[in-house]
């Protein structure tokens, strides 16, 4: 950290700001630097995948189904930020750290509430039905959210420009340069993953989540309300997806109601890659996917095939490790 040099607080010259956003494409940089710079870009993308993948994997852990509406919760997080920013700006200047923190926290809270509501309205009535019924319902919820949000009375179908939440700048760390957004994306992800690990490993409710995930009826014999733990899990996972939505908006600036489809799919794949149901696995899977995708996209000649290359590598990994990178073989209970 000693070598980190923060840029001037304000950058009046727009060309200077433009330059700061493009260090990876500077062809005069040596190859090693180019590679490490792509690594930074890949990790920043992977961080967003990781935050979303955790929601998939946690819900799978307690309910054994894939909540396909989770990618749309991520999208709603982005839009929450989009609509909150002008209101927050009335009290705290944006771009600015205090305003950004408030937008982040509020979006996470909103997404947590949406996630809890989706479970309550759509999945809870089907608790004792076959998992396939719930899975199909999840796809229905996902489509419902996507197409309702595209209506002109809601968000409208066109892409919107995500507001600037943080002052632009460049940090140098070793030979690498991070722009503020990349630095914040990675920093926030690390903090959130640490907080999540603490909750799951050290708190009473986290232990109860693990107990429900291992054996729900045995957990209820301990006095644990499965219903409460399931709600909590949806809330926690959706809050992380909301954070992911904000970080994504800050990085890619264009948001639209269907953005959750592609990113959600990738995050789901990341969760499977890491071993579905395994929390560190989801984080690792997200990072691996982000990095692989970024490197594939950065190679001249094949860059248009970046998703194809990324998925091919995933398929190869899953052929040799079908339970995912950190997943363990589970014995199906009868």
């Amino acid at each position: 950290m000693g070598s980190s040099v923060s840029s001037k607080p304000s950058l009046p010259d727009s060309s200077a700001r433009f330059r700061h956003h493009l260090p990876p494409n500077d062809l005069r940089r040596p190859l090693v630097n180019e590679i490490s710079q792509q690594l930074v870009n890949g990790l920043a993308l992977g961080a967003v995948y990781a935050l979303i993948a955790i929601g998939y994997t946690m819900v799978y852990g307690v309910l054994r189904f894939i909540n396909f509406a989770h990618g749309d919760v991520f999208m709603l997080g982005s839009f929450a930020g989009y609509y909150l920013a002008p209101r927050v700006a009335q009290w705290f200047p944006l771009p600015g750290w205090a305003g950004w923190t408030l937008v982040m926290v509020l979006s996470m809270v909103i997404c947590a509430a949406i996630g809890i509501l989706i479970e309550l309205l759509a999945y809870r009535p089907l608790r004792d039905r076959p998992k396939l019924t719930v899975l199909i319902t999840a796809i229905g919820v996902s489509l419902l959210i996507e197409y309702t949000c595209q209506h002109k009375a809601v968000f409208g179908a066109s892409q919107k420009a995500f507001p600037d939440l943080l002052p632009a700048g460049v940090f140098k760390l070793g030979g690498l340069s991070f722009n503020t957004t990349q630095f914040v994306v990675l920093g926030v992800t690390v903090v959130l993953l640490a907080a999540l690990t603490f909750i799951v490993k050290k708190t009473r409710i986290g232990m109860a989540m693990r107990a429900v995930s291992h054996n729900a009826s045995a957990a209820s014999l301990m006095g644990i309300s499965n219903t409460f733990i399931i709600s909590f899990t949806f809330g926690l996972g959706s809050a992380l997806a909301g954070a992911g939505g904000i970080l994504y908006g800050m990085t890619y600036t264009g948001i639209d109601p269907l953005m959750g489809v592609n990113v959600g799919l990738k995050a789901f794949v990341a969760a499977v890659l890491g071993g579905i149901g395994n929390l560190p696995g989801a984080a690792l899977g997200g990072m691996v996917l982000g990095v692989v995708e970024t490197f594939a996209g950065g190679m001249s000649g094949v860059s248009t095939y970046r998703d194809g290359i990324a998925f091919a590598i995933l398929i190869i990994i899953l052929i040799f490790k079908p339970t995912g990178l950190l997943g363990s073989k589970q014995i199906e209970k009868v």
Partner: protein
Amino acid sequence: MLTVKDLHVSYGAIKALHGVSLEVPQGSIVTLIGANGAGKSTTLRALSGLVKPASGKILYEGRDIARSAPHRIVAQGLCHVPEGRMVFANLTVHENLLMGAYLQRDRKWIATQTEYVFSLFPRLKERENQSAGTLSGGEQQMLAIGRALLGRPKFLMLDEPSLGIAPLLVKTIFERIVEINREQGLTILLVEQNANLALEVSSYAYVLESGSILLEGRSSELKANPEVRAAYLGA
């Protein structure tokens, strides 16, 4: 303390219990014996709320708990050590015990009771920080009992504590069950396939067959009953 009246349970179209009635007086050890599939586990699962009875009453300390959710029943001091132990294999021994104490707020009581469980089963103390999945069957059974004891039970239900466990450990576990009953004044309902053992430690017994009570009586009398001896005691 617990009175079951005309309990009926079905799994879909299959009737598992048709009209089971039984009574467990405070402070006693009562056993429910019977062959595989007779409905012993189903009876316990209905008592702890894991399956909803089709009809009938379960009066626990005078209240009907037949429609209550499992986590509410546990809160009233009715704890269930399920068949197959069902310890949380992904949690450590210590964490499993803490899960047993999920509803307990009194940290001092939890610490004292944990020590009591360790004194009953010193093996658990040795393996305190190991994940429960690495324990042997007998050790897992000890853990399952210890975990239930941390739920501050007034009424303890044990489902097949001898199942799949080395004979030497079975002896230890049954000695401890008697000890718990004596020292903590705990009422126990014991389900066992090993009828010899169950009749040895209990004061009263019910024989369950195809979902209804076939016989009941003092354990010492049932032990002498020629019908029971032929069908369940292998004599």
